[in-house]
């Protein structure tokens, strides 16, 4: 009796062997064997792939470089335009901040009339602390008008043309202003210097000064309105045997970054020149 002929047994054996292999593979028994067989293939695949991509890049890159260069130029151009815009906007923001501060200051003193002006230059001589502003007699500016910022006193109008004016800063060596110490109500004289340092002179010896005391304009002499902040005391020079003591003053205004100022146009300075005693023949 021949149930299974050799021709039918072979496929059955093959099927059983395959089924066994599949079961062994599923059970994980063939993993090391598979790894040993696959790893060289993957390595070869990687090697070929790398070379192929290198070759592909070599062939296609010139076209990409050209397009990338073009894109780069466009983006660089856009970037520089944006940078310029940022700088312009930052500049406008700074100017707006200065103007808002000046506006706040002007609103807080409604009794005064102001003309806001931008500082456009400085005196060519290094000895002179003068600045040039972009408003002149056409805007109502006249010689002697006091100039302030939101921080305090800047100086006064020294010379005027139709569209520009020159201001003498309080730090100029030729500037002397009558001031008052807020704490003691003592009158004194504020003197500028070539270094921009301010010195308070003619302070009576009995006056008790301390660092931080505020210095305001006194209004004496009629050159400046009273009670405008000038600065504060930094150090005191008190020498025995001298008639007066002196003090170094830190100006309230930062003159190194002076961008915009307010000219008080309704203040009429008093010319006391005719009242000054002269030698008569």
């Amino acid at each position, binding site marked *: 009796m021949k149930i299974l002929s050799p021709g039918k047994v072979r496929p059955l054996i093959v099927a059983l062997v395959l089924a066994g292999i599949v079961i062994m593979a599923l059970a994980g028994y063939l993993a090391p064997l598979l790894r040993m067989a696959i790893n060289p293939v993957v390595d070869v695949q990687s090697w070929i792939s790398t070379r192929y991509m290198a070759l592909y890049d070599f062939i296609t890159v010139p076209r990409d470089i050209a397009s990338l260069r073009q894109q780069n130029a466009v983006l660089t151009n856009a970037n520089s335009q944006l940078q310029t815009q940022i700088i312009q906007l930052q500049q406008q923001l700074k100017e707006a901040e200065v103007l808002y501060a000046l506006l706040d200051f002007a609103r807080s003193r409604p009794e005064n009339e102001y003309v806001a002006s931008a500082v*456009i*230059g*400085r*005196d*060519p*001589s*290094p*000895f*002179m602390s*003068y600045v*040039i502003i972009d408003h002149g007699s056409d805007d109502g500016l006249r010689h002697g008008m006091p100039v302030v910022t939101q921080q305090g006193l800047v100086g006064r109008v*020294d*010379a005027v043309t139709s569209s520009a004016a*020159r201001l*003498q800063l309080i730090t*100029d*060596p*030729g500037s002397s202003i009558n001031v008052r110490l807020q704490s003691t109500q003592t009158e004194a004289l504020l*003197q*500028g*210097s*070539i*270094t*921009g340092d301010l010195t308070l002179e003619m302070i009576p010896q009995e006056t008790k000064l301390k660092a931080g005391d505020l210095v305001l304009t006194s209004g004496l002499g009629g050159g400046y309105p009273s009670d405008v902040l000038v600065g504060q005391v930094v150090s005191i020079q008190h020498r025995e045997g001298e008639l007066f003591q002196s003090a170094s003053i830190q100006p309230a205004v930062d003159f190194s970054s002076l961008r915009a100022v307010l000219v008080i146009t309704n203040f009429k300075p008093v010319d006391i020149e005719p009242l000054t005693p002269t030698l008569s023949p």
Partner: protein
Amino acid sequence: MIMPVLIGIPVLLLSLVIQTTAFSRLPLLYGTADIVMLVILAWMLNERVKHGWEWVLMAGIMVSFVSALPFFTPLWGYLAAAGLSFWLKKRIWQSPVLAMLVSTFIGTMIMLLLSMVVLQINGSAISTKEAFNLVILPSLLWNLILSIPVYSIINELVDWVYPDEVNV
């Protein structure tokens, strides 16, 4: 020939604008460069220039108008400095760069010492020692640094205004 004089107006105005807007805001200690003076010194030093004094007068008047220095001090200072430059041109014309440096040195000293003396006479509280250390010497250094570039630029301008005559 009025052309070189006319060219002087925009050149000197531009120098003055650059001076007041830029260089006066760039102090070295408390000293600043004087571009207008360097321009007229470089102009006066050039061999081919025939209208130097007109430039000096224009520069002096312009700066005197803008500056608060009294008694037209910039005008007298520039005339003195340019006179020195003119004198130097005749003596050391073979070395124009050396002449520029020497005239910058002496011109700066003349200009700033004159300004200091005038201000002291006018009643400003200026200490001579402080003025020397903090203003005059730093200004001198600034001017010497800028003298050669200014000389080169003005030399180009001279070449354009007074082109070399070519014999055919």
